[in-house]
């Protein structure tokens, strides 16, 4: 009984979070929908057609967006996993200070940061390049990565890593075979956050990409700021669906990797023992 009650509660809470999204779906095909009607008065496909029409930049920019965000995710994971490990497993002078410092990208407004870095990026020849955009996207996602991995490492400890080393695994091997699989839940949640935040980045993309790197939000945001709800919703819809698919795809790949490092061995031994 306790369980069914909690299931009902779970469903209600989840639905109240998910259902609002129906509004985006509806508005993406709604021409007019005056008060107090419950269903749109007139439907149309202008928004979606604009996005998918031949020669539309939307599709190209989606690919650019995904490419950038995937790189950002990989790079950020690569630097925040060791960082989180240091904060999660070690005691050292300055730790408390660093824990606050890593939040800086959230605390200092991205406008201030972006403007500050713009000049340096120009001098380094990174503006108007995808590389520059990727690098700048790393900044706002650092807090998410570091924080999540710090917590995960605090939780899992390093006993299994020790075991790996004892069995002769070098640092890299230990990382690949033991650390990665044990922190996989953290990688999935941090990776999702990083991907999402990078994927929806607007201001920094524009500032550093200078308009030559056209991501999807660059096209989408002006519509969202305008009163054209159909265009705004259509772009949002495509954005959300693509981001979700990309996320699930990445997650699936990670899980596949994860099971490859354990499951296949399992199959093999089960078979042989019969």
């Amino acid at each position, binding site marked *: 009984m306790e369980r069914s009650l909690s299931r009902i509660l779970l469903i209600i809470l989840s639905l109240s979070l998910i259902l609002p999204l129906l509004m985006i779906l509806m508005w993406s095909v709604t*021409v*007019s*929908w*005056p*008060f107090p009607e419950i269903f749109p008065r*007139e439907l*149309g496909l*202008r*928004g979606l057609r*604009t996005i998918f029409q031949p*020669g539309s*930049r939307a599709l190209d920019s989606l690919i650019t967006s995904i490419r950038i965000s995937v790189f950002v995710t990989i790079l950020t994971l690569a630097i925040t996993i060791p960082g989180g490990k240091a904060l999660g497993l070690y005691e050292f002078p300055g730790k408390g200070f660093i824990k606050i410092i890593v939040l800086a990208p959230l605390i200092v407004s991205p406008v201030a940061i972006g*403007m500050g870095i*713009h*000049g340096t990026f*120009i*001098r380094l020849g990174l*503006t*108007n390049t995808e590389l520059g955009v990727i690098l700048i996207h790393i900044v706002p996602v650092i807090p998410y990565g570091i924080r999540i991995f710090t917590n995960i490492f605090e939780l899992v400890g390093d006993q299994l890593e020790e075991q790996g080393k004892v069995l002769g695994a070098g640092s890299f091997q230990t990382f690949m075979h033991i650390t990665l699989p044990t922190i996989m839940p953290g990688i999935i949640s941090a990776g999702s956050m990083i991907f999402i935040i990078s994927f929806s980045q607007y*201001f920094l993309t*524009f*500032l550093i990409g*200078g*308009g*030559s790197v*056209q991501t999807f939000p*660059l*096209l989408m945001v*002006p*519509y969202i*700021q*305008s*009163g*054209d*709800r*159909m*265009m705004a919703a259509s772009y949002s819809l495509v954005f959300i669906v693509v981001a979700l698919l990309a996320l699930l795809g990445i997650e699936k790949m990670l899980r596949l990797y994860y099971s490859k490092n354990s499951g296949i061995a399992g199959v093999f031994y089960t078979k042989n023992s019969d």
Partner: protein
Amino acid sequence: EEEETLDLETMTWEEILEEAEGSEVRFYGWGGDQAINDWMNGFVAEQMMEKYDITLEWVPMNIDEILNKLQGEKQAAARGTADMIWINGENFFTAKSNDLLYGPFTEMLPNFNNYVNSEDVEVKYDFGYPTEGYEAPFGKTQFVMIYDQEQTPNPPTNHEALLSYAKAHPGEITFPAPPDFTGSVFVRNIIYDIVGHEQFLDMEAEKEVVREAIAPAMEYFKELKPYLWREGETYPATLAQLENMYADGEVRMVMAYNSNLVSQRISSGMFPETSTSVIFDKGTVGNGHFIGVPFNSYNRVGALVVINEILSPEVQASKYNPDNWGDLPVLDNDKLREEDREIFERVELGEGALPQDVLLENRLPEVPAPLVPIIDQIWMENLLD
């Protein structure tokens, strides 16, 4: 780059055309309108490709962000990515006073010389600020208010009528609070309607002076406040939200600094078909919008060619067509050849929009740019506690 700058001034138009051939031009500007985006990416880009083998890249971007980017590039003395920017008003003032624009260049454009009246105040001045050839006219708009004729058969055409209309329908009129761009224009229109517009054209940008000049208008707003939506305690944050509220029937009036907005919204189905534009009897503020060339444009020759083409009757007429955009043309009727004039006459105006001549007759000039923030400030101090 330096060379090019030097060359440009001495080059003939033919040489410029030749130089520009096969190049790429990047045009940055507001991208929140599907029709405009389509027109830019479609008609204009195709024209450029066909006529000059120029690839025109339309980059949707807000002007304040563009200026920030230019400013950063200027400090680092870097080459830019934008060749043309869509600009006007205060932003032009900021750009020009910070040396972010290349110019003067308008005199180099054959179409400017041929079709544009360079002595027209709306070409010479932008928000009271002299353009000095640093930006070429692009189009014109005028502030309008939009009502649903079915709901409001006799829309108010002056501030007093507006007040009694608000009293008759309390809570159904509102506007985005300044310093929102459109809300700010609305406030200036009311001010013009109450205290006239002439005094502002050469008014000192001094808060006390302005405060005194607009005091009656502030009284008016205070009187209006209780009859506004939510009793004037709060205002929509953006024009977009006001548009949505109007579309959903929550308020009775919406406004636009775009005389053609109504026909676009009607044709896209957002606004009721009975929506119509209204201006005050004493007229409403109008302004022009322009195209500038960033100081660090990489392809100035290309930019000049494109701007020149935009000033051609074909492009201007196409832009005037509400199916494309509906923006008022900037060419001088008197300078046009007969056949060109006909192109304009053939353009069919959209639903609910006022014809060009009605607008032009009731067109008031903008206040000088420096006054705008001062007025906004005073309004806020008076009406937001």
